[in-house]
């Protein structure tokens, strides 16, 4: 507060002066509020533009064009000896059965090139679907079945309106004769947009219509489990030691400076470190979530330590005094009173670190999590990739159908992030206390 006596003109009461100044103060207040609202609205605007563009591009990926085909499951083609042996059933040539059914639908098609185009209407995955169906129920052999299989991605794109039918034939991925077949199939109700379950249950694929997010999602989940279970206890323990127990001397100062520096190191450097140390020295399996988790642990540790120390610092010293003053040991005071109060802050730091780890691509590229992996990983040792890397890979693929999948994968990533944050908020609510 400034000294009022010298600013006061002769005779004016201080109340009058306060009144005179009020208009100005209110205006300043209003300006400040406006500025804040403006900032928030601009932020919200950009966020909604981003979300709208992602969702509008990506939501179509959750539907996929399916084609109904009628396949004759002749016993002599599948199981000529009639053993119904699983191995025989697995090895049977289902794709030729599907080709046969396509020929049956369009008997007029002849010539190598046209036939090839005709077979291309159905996805390569159809043969696997058929195989699974037969193996699940061998009694189907000898009958004619009608089943829905994924259509090729070009058909899918046409159905979704991403291919312009009015363009010159040479500029189109779908030629005129193929267009005619597709129209005929549509007229026969053999083409339909259906919910794309495969997107959530399958791993990556070279065929966009078969590519799913499951592999990357599981890879991310395994990686984050490793990261969380290492970086949270390590980070909190380090923070508690440094803040509550460590002597304050040159060594602890040095450690503190280095932790702050590490938090600012570009993440790709941690990837290089992981490559050099975890793969080359310790011989851990390349591309595995375990490795990714270790590298991301290194990356998130400084964040968690710094946030946890800040949380510990903000616990009022009077709480420590209270415990020590009746004879609690420093460990008891910390464990029973300080850490519970600091926990919400620690959780906030952890969730920031985990969100960082979730979105990280660069270090994972260095340790081989960028490889094409079609199988869904079953554990932390299986080769896998991660959501952001999958997004990067799909965004890099030339086929038109990957565009919507890229956006859909981003939606999955954001959904996962929101879920993580929700859990953190709930946990924090549980631990939050007044004092």
């Amino acid at each position, binding site marked *: 507060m400034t000294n009022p006596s010298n600013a006061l003109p002769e005779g004016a009461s201080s109340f009058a002066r306060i009144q005179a100044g009020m208009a100005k103060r209110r205006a300043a207040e209003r300006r400040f509020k406006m500025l804040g609202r403006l900032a928030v609205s601009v932020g919200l605007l950009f966020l909604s533009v981003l979300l709208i563009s992602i969702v509008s591009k990506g939501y179509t990926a959750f539907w996929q064009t399916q084609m109904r085909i009628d396949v004759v499951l002749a016993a002599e083609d599948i199981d000529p000896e009639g053993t119904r042996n699983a191995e025989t059933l697995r090895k049977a040539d289902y794709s030729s059965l599907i080709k046969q059914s396509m020929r049956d639908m369009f008997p007029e098609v002849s010539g190598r090139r046209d036939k090839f185009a005709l077979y291309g209407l159905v996805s390569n995955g159809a043969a696997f679907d058929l195989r699974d169906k037969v193996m699940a129920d061998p009694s189907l052999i000898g009958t004619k079945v009608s089943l829905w299989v994924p259509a090729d991605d070009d058909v899918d794109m046409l159905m979704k309106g991403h291919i312009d039918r009015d363009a010159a034939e040479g500029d189109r991925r779908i030629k005129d004769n193929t267009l005619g077949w597709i129209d005929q199939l549509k007229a026969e109700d053999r083409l339909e947009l259906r919910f794309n379950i495969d997107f959530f249950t399958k791993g990556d694929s070279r065929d966009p219509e078969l590519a799913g997010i499951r592999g990357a999602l599981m890879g991310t989940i395994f990686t984050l489990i490793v990261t969380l279970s290492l970086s949270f206890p390590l980070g909190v323990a380090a923070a508690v030691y440094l803040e509550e127990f460590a002597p*304050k001397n040159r060594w602890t100062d040095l450690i503190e400076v280095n932790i702050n520096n590490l938090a600012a190191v570009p993440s790709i450097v941690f990837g290089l470190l992981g490559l050099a140390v975890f793969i080359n020295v310790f011989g851990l399996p390349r591309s595995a979530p375990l490795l990714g988790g270790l590298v991301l642990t290194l990356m998130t540790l400084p964040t968690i330590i710094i946030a946890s120390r800040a949380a510990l610092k903000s616990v*009022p010293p*009077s*709480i*420590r*005094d*209270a*415990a*020590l*003053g*009746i*004879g*609690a*040991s420093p460990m*008891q005071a910390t464990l*029973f*009173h300080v850490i519970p*109060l600091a926990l919400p802050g620690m959780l906030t730091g952890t969730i920031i670190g985990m969100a960082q780890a979730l979105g990280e691509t660069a270090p994972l590229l260095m340790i081989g999590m960028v490889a094409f992996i079609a199988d869904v990983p079953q554990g932390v040792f299986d080769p896998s990739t991660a959501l952001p890397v999958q997004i990067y890979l799909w965004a890099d693929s030339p086929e038109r159908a990957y565009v919507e999948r890229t956006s859909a994968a981003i939606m999955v990533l954001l959904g996962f992030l929101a879920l993580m944050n929700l859990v953190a908020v709930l946990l924090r609510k549980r631990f939050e*206390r*007044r*004092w």
Partner: protein
Amino acid sequence: MSPQGQAMAFKFDGAAGSAHTTTVGRDVRETVGEVRVNDPRIRCTDINVHYGEKHAIKNISLDVGKGEVLAMIGPSGCGKSTFLRCLNRMNDTVRECRVTGEILLDGEDINGRHIDVVPLRARVAMVFQKPNPFPKSIYENVAFGPRIHGLCDSKADLDVIVESSLRKANLWEEVKDRLDDVGTGLSGGQQQRLCIARAIAIEPEVILMDEPCSALDPISTAKVEQLIEELRQQFSIVIVTHSMQQAARVSQRTAYFHMGDLIEVSETDRLFIKPRHQLTEDYITGRFG
């Protein structure tokens, strides 16, 4: 409460003392009065405390008797809290603080090398100026001490300790129906009595109180004072206060501190009626500063 005492409590440390440096020398001063008692619980000899370069306590010797309430008064920043915190080594937690001298608790030097501060603080418990209950339930606040020191074998034991401590602290009637409510939700006066209950639950030999009533209304203050009177039967109590009336009401002996020196220690009645040192007289008559 004297207007001076009231005002000083809100000044920053050290600000009040500076006016006197010119009239009184900087040398260590002899203490006037009865420093020693016959049957001491605590005997301090030649205590010096430094905060870095700052000499906060200058060569003080003082006894705390058994079953006695010793009041410590003096202007803000004179070192009362610092001296009090020496008695259970709470100054250990202050990094740049150095304590020298001998403090005997029942004849044993608490600054000795082999002394463990944890059991020491269980014997010399502290109640702070600002009520600082744990942000846990009222029950947990009181139960914490007995539990960590292993003073109870069963939940029933603990219940008994909690109840009797709260009763002694004059709080039982007010909280007996809401022991599970959070301790920080109580009023300031109730919180302070909760902190006292927490301290007496571990049955210490000495209770150190740093301005326990500074945030309390007259009714709560009266309750705490009554409590101190009752506790004296069982514990020795050292109390820092800015209210000379309070010192006069609750204590048997009073020590007057001034800028890190212990100026005078006397029977409380005598100190307030017939102070022997000029500085003491200035302070209690309100001429200080």
